[in-house]
């Protein structure tokens, strides 16, 4: 009976060692942004192992697109305010419909410019990796709802887009 217990302890220890070492060998710690690196672009660097030159290029495009995004946000915000104002003032139905159509059109422009931006990034990444990038991001932006509140799941990601909260 005593030997059975020794065997059981030995087997459990073997299991723990095997499980622990497999975990330690296969685990990938959360990457950390280097000093001066844009943490939002960390995924691109880690996933596609991009060289510094391409990363710098993408960072520039990313920053430039944020300006475009800001402008779209402002236009959408203004158009929605206009729709609200017209509804509040009980304006003509055709005026309200026109204003709503403008909101829809601005939303469409916003989505298509976002998609174009992603395709440009894929071009910089290049080749099969660029296609893989699109395969990852395009299905996800298909679920974007530009009327939604900013995603606050992560504490830092909305910092550069605080004004979007007014949408």
């Amino acid at each position, binding site marked *: 009976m005593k030997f059975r217990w020794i065997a059981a302890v030995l087997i459990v220890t073997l299991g723990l060692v095997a499980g622990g070492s497999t975990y330690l060998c296969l685990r990938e710690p*959360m990457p950390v942004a280097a000093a001066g690196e844009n943490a939002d672009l960390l995924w691109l660097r880690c996933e596609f192992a991009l060289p510094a030159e391409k990363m710098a290029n993408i960072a520039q495009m990313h920053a430039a697109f944020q300006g475009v995004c800001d402008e779209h946000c402002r236009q959408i915000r203004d158009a929605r305010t206009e729709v609200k104002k017209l509804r509040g003032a009980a304006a003509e139905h055709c005026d309200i419909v026109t204003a709503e159509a403008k909101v829809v059109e601005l939303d469409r422009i916003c989505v298509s410019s976002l998609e174009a931006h992603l395709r440009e990034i894929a071009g910089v990444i290049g080749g099969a990796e660029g296609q893989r990038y699109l395969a990852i991001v395009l299905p996800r932006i298909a679920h974007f709802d530009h009327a939604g509140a900013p995603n606050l799941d992560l504490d830092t990601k909305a910092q550069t887009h605080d004004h979007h909260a007014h949408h």
Partner: protein
Amino acid sequence: MNPNQNDAELGPLLRENFRVTPGKNPAFRTAVWARIESSRRSPTTWGGWLRLNATRFALLAVAVVTIAGAGGGWIASAQAEQNREQLVQRYLASISPHQKN
């Protein structure tokens, strides 16, 4: 108490008064041999026990190591996937913070 061990009356007296009639146990021999066999087979050292149960021990050890290894690998890959997803979400949110998940 009588200290004299060669009391001449003792023998006849015992024969007269102490009669033992044990019941017959047909399984007695079998039981004795079973105990002898059992004590011969049960090892007294850990090495002896391991030699006797080598196959069972090895099979169990291999099964436990395989399952634990697979479990450790699964946890590691699930965690890596979770980290990756977090980074993807962060990237997408930095492009457009209006996503609804």
